[in-house]
């Protein structure tokens, strides 16, 4: 086990702790765990968000409000957060769709989010269905500017790809991993040429315990907020028992611990990217 204080990669990072919707507009103080530390947060009357370590009420931690979420840093905060331009596009609905606690590492959760091969088994009848099990070839790159893992030209057969779909389609996807614990999924929307975005921001509470914050940035206006939430809860509820039964729970960065196939190209790149960054927290290297 690694302490976050021994790992500058995890420490000097913005971490999501809550959607703004959850804390707005109450003055209630909330408590959560981030990198093994108990932290408290609230929104005051002037809509200012305050975050502090338990027992250090007077020392406010560096905070950032972005993409509908509160971000906190326990070390030296980086100047910028990754870009997510779609968030500010007009006509889009930005919605936090729920938080789910999972006993796993952030890396395992991100990897699962970017994995298509499990759709027919874990999300049977919704995101995939036998015998449409093939993961067709797609492209992956680790880019420098911006520093992220990008998977494009992904295709997978989906019997019901989103709340509004009623029949099967070969859905197109793009996956972006612009932050060690955050991933964005782009897929076709009801507006031609525009893509809906599904968001997963992971809050590492401990090395093997996370809160997965989900959100959507979409054009759909036919489904209710409740429908969208229920759909996301159903999907993440199906992933949770799988994630909690992985061993080790921390993400293996040593390529000789697990057997990848071509379908796992995104995961291979993601693990390599993390290894090059020198991330220790929530991973196993040897």
């Amino acid at each position: 086990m690694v302490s976050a204080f021994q790992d500058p990669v995890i420490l000097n990072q913005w971490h999501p702790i809550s959607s703004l919707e959850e804390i707005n507009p109450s003055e209630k103080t909330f408590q959560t765990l981030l990198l093994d530390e108990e932290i408290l947060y609230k929104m005051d009357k002037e809509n200012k968000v305050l975050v502090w370590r338990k027992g250090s009420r007077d020392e406010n931690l560096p905070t950032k409000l972005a993409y509908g979420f509160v971000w906190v840093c326990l070390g030296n905060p980086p100047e910028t957060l990754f870009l997510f331009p779609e968030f500010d596009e007009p006509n889009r609905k930005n919605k936090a769709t729920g938080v789910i606690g999972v006993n796993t590492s952030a890396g395992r959760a991100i990897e699962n989010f970017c994995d298509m091969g499990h759709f027919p088994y874990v999300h049977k009848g919704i995101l995939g269905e036998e015998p449409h099990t093939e993961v067709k070839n797609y492209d992956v790159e680790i880019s420098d500017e911006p520093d992220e893992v990008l998977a494009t030209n992904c295709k997978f057969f989906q019997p019901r790809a989103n709340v509004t779909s009623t029949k099967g389609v070969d859905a197109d996807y793009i996956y972006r991993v612009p932050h060690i614990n955050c991933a964005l999924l782009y897929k076709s929307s009801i507006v031609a040429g525009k893509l809906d975005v599904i968001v997963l921001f992971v809050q590492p509470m401990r090395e093997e315990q996370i809160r997965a914050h989900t959100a959507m940035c979409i054009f759909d206006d036919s489904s209710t907020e409740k429908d969208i939430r229920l759909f996301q809860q159903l999907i993440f509820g199906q992933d949770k028992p799988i994630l909690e039964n992985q061993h080790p729970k921390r993400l293996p960065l040593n390529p000789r611990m697990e057997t990848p196939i071509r379908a796992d190209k995104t995961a291979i790149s993601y693990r390599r990217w993390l290894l090059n960054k020198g991330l220790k927290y929530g991973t196993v290297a040897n």
Partner: protein
Amino acid sequence: MTNVRENNLRKIICMEKNKIYALRKKWFPIASSSDLVKRHVFQAQLLGREFAVWRADDGNVNVWENRCLHRGVRLSIGINQGSELKCQYHGWRYANRTAGCTYIPAHPADAPARTICNNTYPVKEFIGMIWSGEDAIENDFSYKELSKRTVLRPVPINAPNDLVQKNLLNYYSELNFDGLLLNDGSIEINLGGKKKILFFIQPQDSKLSVVRGVLNATLSDEKRYHFLKEQNFIIERFREKMEQISENLNLEPMVAEIEEISNDLGEPPTKEDCGRKAELRLHVSERILTSRDVVSLKLKGIEGQLPTFHPGAHIDLHLQNGLIRQYSLVNGPGETDHYRIGVKLEKDGRGGSQYIHNNVKVGDLLATSAPRNNFPLRRDSLYTIFIAGGIGITPLLSMSKALHSMELDYEFHYFVQSEKDISFKETLKILGERVIIHKGLSQENTINKVRKILQKPGYYKNLYVCGPGPMLEATLKIASDLKWADDTIHFEYFKNDRKINNDSNFEIELARSALTLTVSAGKTILEILRENGVDLPSSCEQGACGTCKVNVIRGDIDHQDVYLNATERANKNIMMTCVSRSLSDRLILDI
């Protein structure tokens, strides 16, 4: 001072590790036999290592490491399918006994020449319990089977193994039962009469043990009820005591190291872009044993219409063990929403049919080529004779169904060893009286029968033969002796049994591509073409199917295939690039 402390700590850790290594060599019970209910997967643990324990339908008990090699998901949450264990996460399947991965649904066309195999551990089933040990030594197992026995309910105790073992004997003696600590670590408690309970303590983790007992007698229902209840009560009290003592013991959980996989498994296999293509994805919608050793598979497309086929066509199956095999379609006219093939189990074969028989299940996705026809049927014949030997029935059945529906004249001879070897009986029934089945004929009688059948060659009469090599050769010789013209005899070999000589060195000139290439000994024309970016279609790649045929403009061909007939050979203008070579220094090919 700190150094001394650290050194001591290191010594203790080292001692603990050595202790664990020693214990790993021993056999321990890890489950009761009754835990392995049909189609269940039981999760067990020994010395910190988790096991997935499951009984296959054939009775074999598997003790495997409890993680799928792909993404580490516990196999104990997987599905016991009777002969295979299926992982919940991505549907990977692992075979009974070998734990080898037999199916990766994400890549039905992948043919990695590698074996992905899960870690398995030794297993024994004795006295109503399942025994294992990570490094247990086969000959060290000393427990004898009890002809009469009653297995106690196992009781887990949150206390270290040695503490439980040390105290169990004393505890029973306090209750006035004498007993013995045996050399192998088990504890024998004397209940009076000749009744004894034998106890074993399973070390699950550093602070978790399971007390497992067995009585050397079979009890009637009522007695059994009281006995189990009483012992349960006694051991529960013991448990409370042990847990009180060890409550404040602070022990690190045991570490079961994850063994590194081999280097080649750490990277996904590269895929060849050139060569035999698997353009279709079909799923197995039906699997029937149509005769003693022939399995009939019905294959359906997962989307859209299947490509059209003609009678005599075959498809290549790209199997997940890396083999590519050809199978003729059995379909008749109009049967266009699926393909049907028949696969005979070749026990001494190279593994293709064995793989299909053992691993391919209903629901599986298979990667196949589109149908190809190098054994076409003439439908302008006034009379057609089919001679099928064994599994050679498959292309001929498709042909005869076509003629049947067109009400053309034919007779269908089917040579089999016995009644049990007759495949596709339902279809044969439809063809009715035109089918003549010859059962169990000796080699000599088969030849006599064939001679009789072929007695009268004639005007617009055609012969189609498919069967094992010797039978095919004999039939072709008889037909030729009886003056059947070469272009009325149509045949298809299953495989090329001839020994291929690839010692020659020569050049090939590609007339249309303006390329000259060198074919050296050990390489085939087909390989050299592909290495240079000229991608010819191919299928069997052993000179039997005719797919890689090319026209030859000039040069002396060294034919080594079994596809061409004598006339075609004599014409010297056509060759099979997968096996045939050149007798001259140079061949000019029409490509």
